[in-house]
């Protein structure tokens, strides 16, 4: 399976937000709550990644609760792709 770079996933994340008229800040420490990135958005991002890499991500991996920032999302998706 191919993997996407952190930058590529970041671009997709920006697309998910921009479809709702929202912007993804450049700062990875920005809080998801502040920018309005919710579980449904996270699901959409995961599907975009899955479609791109042609494989399903295993979300049963631990660590979901600690996802609070943009950086956490990018780290988590990076971790899932290489799991």
């Amino acid at each position, binding site marked *: 399976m191919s993997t996407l770079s952190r930058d590529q996933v970041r671009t997709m994340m920006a697309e998910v937000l*921009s*479809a*709702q008229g929202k912007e993804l800040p450049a700062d990875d420490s920005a809080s998801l709550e502040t920018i309005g990135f919710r*579980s*449904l958005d*996270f*699901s*959409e991002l*995961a*599907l*975009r990644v899955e*479609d791109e890499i042609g494989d399903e*991500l295993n*979300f049963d991996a631990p660590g979901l609760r600690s996802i609070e920032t943009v950086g956490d999302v990018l780290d988590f998706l990076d971790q899932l792709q290489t799991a």
Partner: protein
Amino acid sequence: MSLPAGAGNRVITARYDGTWAGLADAPVLPPAAAVLVQDNTEAVRAVWQAATTPRETLIAAATRVGDEQAQELRESGLAVVRSDAVEPPLTGREPEAGRVWLLTSGSTGRPKQVAHTLESLTTVGGDQPRRTWLCPYATGAYAWWQIVTLSLALPGQDVLFVEPSELDRWPQMAVDAGVTAASGTPTFWRQALFRSGDVLAGLQLEQITLGGEPVDQAILDTLREVFPKARISWIYASSEAGAAIAVHDGRAGFPAAWLERDTPGRPRLTVQDGELVIASAKAAEGMDAAIRTGDRAEVVGDRVLITGRIASDEINVGGSKASASKVRGVLLDHPDVRWAAVRGRKAPLVGQVVMAEVVLADGSAVTDADLTAWCAARLPDYSVPRRLRVLPEIPIKETLKSDV
């Protein structure tokens, strides 16, 4: 048996062009037969024998019946006929004269066998204007029998049968045969408008009938625009419940005043827990007095809208219930969307998200983002499609229905 009143009507298939009565010289079928046909020519020959001799008949496209089911048909006392090959029944019994068996569309699993007669399949009577009908339905399906029995029962009702392999070019075939009435699913009409709208507009259609799928206002309006003089009807019918509702006013749904009304000769319609329930004299035999249709019905103002299948309509998005048919309706309301299919897709965190496939009008510059914004302005957040795919053309199955 006397000859059917429509014996002199013209029947056109890929290999036959003549009257019903002209089919009389076909090889005689066994008295109780499941005729698994290659095409409509074989099918109309079997129909003529069913209509003129006391026998028991099942007609289905050979592609729909597997070996196991063919074996069961033989065990039930029917010979299985495939072109010239006859496999005898495995149970000896008297044929049930006049019995016509139908296989349901089998939307869930394998086709089911339901019991009709030519009489229970004949739902149009009285004086009808002379017409040449187009029959694009799958051979032996309920909607196919509706057109067949109409042509058998009433003089002046000719039929052009279209094979599945000819569906792409039916508008030209219809022009050539002088078709004036056509019946098809909304998907069938959408595909024809999308693919050959210019040829279609040249057809002198007097009667347009839609059925087999939920009929939305957008397709009715488009057909009205292309065929301003045609009578446009939509029919609610199923193998089990028979033809139960016919609406001719150009509006989606049926009048709410028809609910819970007892009219002799008409089915009684009710909505129970959001589901359409029908009690009909034209139902298949062995059915409950009131048939739960599995179709979602919703009273909106003075109309009852039938919007989709209950079982497949609901998409659970993180506990919120999105309705696939509602999302589809919103997409179809977009001026550039010609066709749409909506379903749930397994997704992390929320269980399912709404995903949609659309076909756009020729030359449309509409983007995914535009459609998402369109939906977001009209639907709750969880119902907005999160994955949206634009297809180059409308996918269609043998039943003429699309998976919507």
